Structure formats: C-alpha cells, structure tokens
C-alpha cells in the first residue's frame, strides 16, 4: 500500500507521458535505429534488407561523385542562405523596432513570408525565374542586359534556389529577432542616450551584444533548416541542371523513392544526421560561452 502511494507520481506521470513515449518511439527512435540498420544492407524493392554488406554503402556513397557533389552543393547552399537571411532579417527587425507610426504595417509585411508555404513560394519564384515571361528577365530586358537562364544554367541555379530560400526564411527570422529586440530593456537605451551614445554606438555596444542569444538561436535553426531543404528543389530544379542543386535531402529522396536503393539512401540519411548533430553540438559548444551573460 505504502509503495503504491509513494509511486503515485511515477504511475500518473508515466500515464501522461505514454502518448509521447509511444509516438517518439514509433516515429523517431525506431525509425532512427532502422535507418542505421538499413544503412548496412542492400535492400529489395519493398525496402526489405536482403544482403548485409557492412560499410560498403558508406564507402560507396563517399566515393561516388554524385554524393560528393551533393554534399558540396548543400554546403554552398548553407553558406549562401544562412548568413544573408539572418543579416537581412536583423536589419529589418532593427528598423521595424523603432517607435514610428504605422510600423505595425511594416512588421506584418516583413513577417508575411512565414505564412507562405514552401510549395507556394517555389511556384511563385518559378514564375519570376521563367526564362521568357518571368519578371527578372523582363527587368533585365528593360535595362538592356542579356537574359539569364536562372534555373537552367548550372552556374546560376544554386544561387537562384538560394535566393528563393532566403526570401522564404526572412519572415520567420524577422519575427524571432524582433521578439529578441523587444526583450531588451528600454531604459538601457535611455541611459546610453543621456551618456551621449549615438545610434550606431547603441547598436554596436548594446543591441547586438544583448541580442546575441536570439541570433545564436536563429542561426542554429537556420543552419538545420538549410540542411533539410527539399520543397523548393523539387519544384524549382528537381536537383538539376547537371545535379548542381541536388541537395542532400533531395538526393536521399531520389535514391530511396525513385531508385529504390533504400540501403544507400539510409547511409546518406545517416550522414545528414551526423552533420546536423555536429552543427548543433558545435553551435552549443562555441555559442554557449559567447552569449550567456544572464
């Protein structure tokens, strides 16, 4: 009886946790283990492992030009999108944090891309990039510049996809950074004003340091999101031309659901997992020291 009473928290607690435990187990932990398992096998059409071949899948993907190219494209994509989208969102948030009339209207506009899905964004940009009727080439034409094959030229395609992605991410980044700015105590600025600090001094000495936890958070999220990009690739380029935009998730998707190579696809998925894990750990290790002051 006593034991029964003492363990009431455990029993009720586990009951309340049960849905989460089952769902995480079924749809996260089990599949994660299964992915690792599959990555050591050759599979048949139905995804059943038929032949254990150890690390063969890994040595295969790392020696394949296709996968190495995919990793390179992914890294470039991350480098193109993350810093720019955070920086632009930061500038916009700083502007929209001023106490001006009608600033709410601008905030709404700035955050709007968060409400637009990947698919819809990609379709809109697909049209903007259209070689003959798209807005960008129309603009180039009016200033007498040669048309650009935005999505068909291997030198341009990754940049075009990156541009689309930056635009898509701005809304969310903006909202988060604006929230961080509004958490900064107004009296700090007032005190600095009395001391004679100008706009940029306040920005450099107060705003940016105090915003660093938010920036740290948004950079981590953006990095992870960038590694996971899929929808815009599927609609804009399908990984082409000549695989210049074959980002890792698209590569996994193709390998698994077009080529039915679940083993090698799983090996790629494990690499993706490893990269995201390392990014997260590095971020926390280096970020922790720099941003924790409170």
């Amino acid at each position, binding site marked *: 009886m006593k034991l029964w009473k003492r363990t009431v928290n455990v029993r009720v607690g586990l009951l309340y946790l049960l849905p*989460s435990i089952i*769902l995480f187990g079924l*749809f996260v932990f089990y599949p*994660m283990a299964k992915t690792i398992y599959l990555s050591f096998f050759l599979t048949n059409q139905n995804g059943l492992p038929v032949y254990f071949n150890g690390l063969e899948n890994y040595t295969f993907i790392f020696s394949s030009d296709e996968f190495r190219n995919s990793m390179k494209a992914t890294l470039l994509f991350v480098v193109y999108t993350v810093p720019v989208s955070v920086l632009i969102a930061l500038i916009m948030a700083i502007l929209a944090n001023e106490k001006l009339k009608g600033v709410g209207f601008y905030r709404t*506009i700035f955050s709007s891309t968060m*409400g637009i899905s990947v698919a819809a964004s990609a379709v809109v940009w697909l049209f903007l990039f259209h070689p003959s009727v798209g807005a960008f080439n129309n603009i180039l034409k009016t200033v007498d510049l040669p048309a650009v094959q935005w999505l068909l030229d291997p030198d341009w395609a990754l940049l075009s996809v990156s541009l689309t992605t930056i635009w898509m991410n701005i809304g969310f980044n903006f909202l988060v950074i604006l*929230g961080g700015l509004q958490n900064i105590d107004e009296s700090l600025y007032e005190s600095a004003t009395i001391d004679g600090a100008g706009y940029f001094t306040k920005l450099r000495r107060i705003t940016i340091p105090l915003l660093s936890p938010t920036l740290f958070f948004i950079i981590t999220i953006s990095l992870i999101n960038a590694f996971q990009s899929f929808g815009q690739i*599927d609609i804009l380029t399908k990984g082409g031309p000549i695989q210049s935009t074959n980002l890792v998730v698209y590569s996994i998707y193709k390998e698994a659901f077009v080529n039915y190579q679940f083993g090698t696809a799983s090996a790629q998925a*494990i690499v993706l997992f490893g990269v995201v894990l390392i990014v997260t750990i590095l971020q926390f290790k280096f970020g922790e020291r720099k941003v924790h002051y409170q």
Partner: protein
Amino acid sequence: MKMPLSQKILFYILLTVFAVLVFFPVAYAFLISFMTPQEVLMGNILPRSFSFGNYEQAFERLPLLKYLFNSFVVSTVVMAGQVLVCAMAAYVFVFLPFRGSNLIFFLFISTMMIPWEATMIPNFLLIQGFGWTNTYMALTLPFFASAFGTFLLRQHFLTIPYELYEAAQIGGVGKLKFFWKVVLPMSKTSVITLGAYSFLTTWNMYLWPLLTTTNDTVRTVQIGIRQLQSNESATDWGVVMAGVMIIILPTLILLFLGQKQLQKGLTQGAIK
C-alpha cells in the same frame, strides 16, 4: 525622445524599400492571377481586368476544394493532437516529477537533433506496413509528439507557482482536474502559440504528404499546387497563380491575426 525629421524619413524610406522587396513576389503573383496567357506573355504588370476567371478555372482543373478540406482537417487534427500530447508531457515534467523524469525529458529534447528527413525511409515503410497510405492517419499521427512543443509548454508551466498545485492537492482537486482547470487555462498564450505554429507548419508540409498520398482522397493543397504547376505551367500561369493565392490565404490570415502572439511565444521558448 524626439527623432529628427531627417532620420524619420530615412527610416520610412528603408522600411518601404524592404517592404517592397519582400512583398513584391506575392503582389506580382496576385496581379498575374488575373491575367490571361496573352497578357502574361506580353510581360504586362497590371491585368486588364480583375475578373475571377482564373480562380474558377483553378477550381475546375483540380479538386482544390477537396485539397483545401484535406489540408484543413490534417492541420486542425495535428494542432489539437500536438497541443494535447505535448501539454500532458510538459505537465508531468513540471508538476509530477519522478526519479528519471529528467532523463525522459532529455530524451525527448534530443529528438530535436534528429532531422525528420533522416528517418523518413523507415517511417514511410512503417506507414505502408500499417496500410495507412492515403489516410489521414499517416498525415497526422506521427506529428502529435513534438519536442519543441513540449519544451515550449514546459517553459510556460514553470512560471505557474508550484504553490497553486500544492493548494489544489490540499483542497482535494485531482491531478487531471488541475491539469484541465488550472494549468491549461493559465497557459493560454503558449497553447495558442503552439497551436498556431503547428497549424502553420502542418499546412505547409510538403515532403511527407508527397510520399504518403498517391491519389486525391487525402492529398493536401501543397501537393495540389505542385500538380497544378506541372500540368499548366507551359500554358497558363494565371491559373497557377490563382491556385497559389487560394492556398496561401488561410495561413496568411492566421499569421496576421496571431503575429504578436507567435512572435512573443517563439522568442520566449527560444531564449529561456
């Protein structure tokens, strides 16, 4: 503090420049959605007339209403399920801690580091094995548990004074009743934030519905727009853009209504 007029004007100019850049694609798509193929071809900026012909066509060529309905059902179910499952878990971590509950919490949080795409192959095989392809089950159930949601709600629950829980215990209020009558109402802001966020992300989900729907029964609008585009792009951009406008409207409205809430909730969850 009065801002000098010159500075004010500069701020407005910069704000406007950014607003135009950010909103240009959407505004342009909106204008295109009223154009005939000929107008699009000529590179016009303004449509000749604002008639809804393209919108009617979009509904005719695809079962858009059906897709909208599906998206709405899926998003609503995920929203409700996620809030409930996460709130229950967060409740335990804050009010019913036991030996090992911290470990479980860490285990939950660690799932944030597993990109969902890394597990999609076994997940797909699992859903196929259950025979759930082309069902709402496949699109909703896997997303009920969320590390982010549990974390967000836990952070808010921590701000509820523990004395309230103790008082309820003394007053003979059961644990379940305390959860429904005190914790959830007191955390309205976080619950709404999480709800809006999960609705938005589910509505916008792309890869998973692409894998698990092979016909129109439960297919969502995101996949619908992909179809519309690949069927029509060569000829009729006006209709495609009309479709885009239709599918972004619900989430834009939701975002505009909940913008303040979302921004507050997200940063709170993020920073603390």
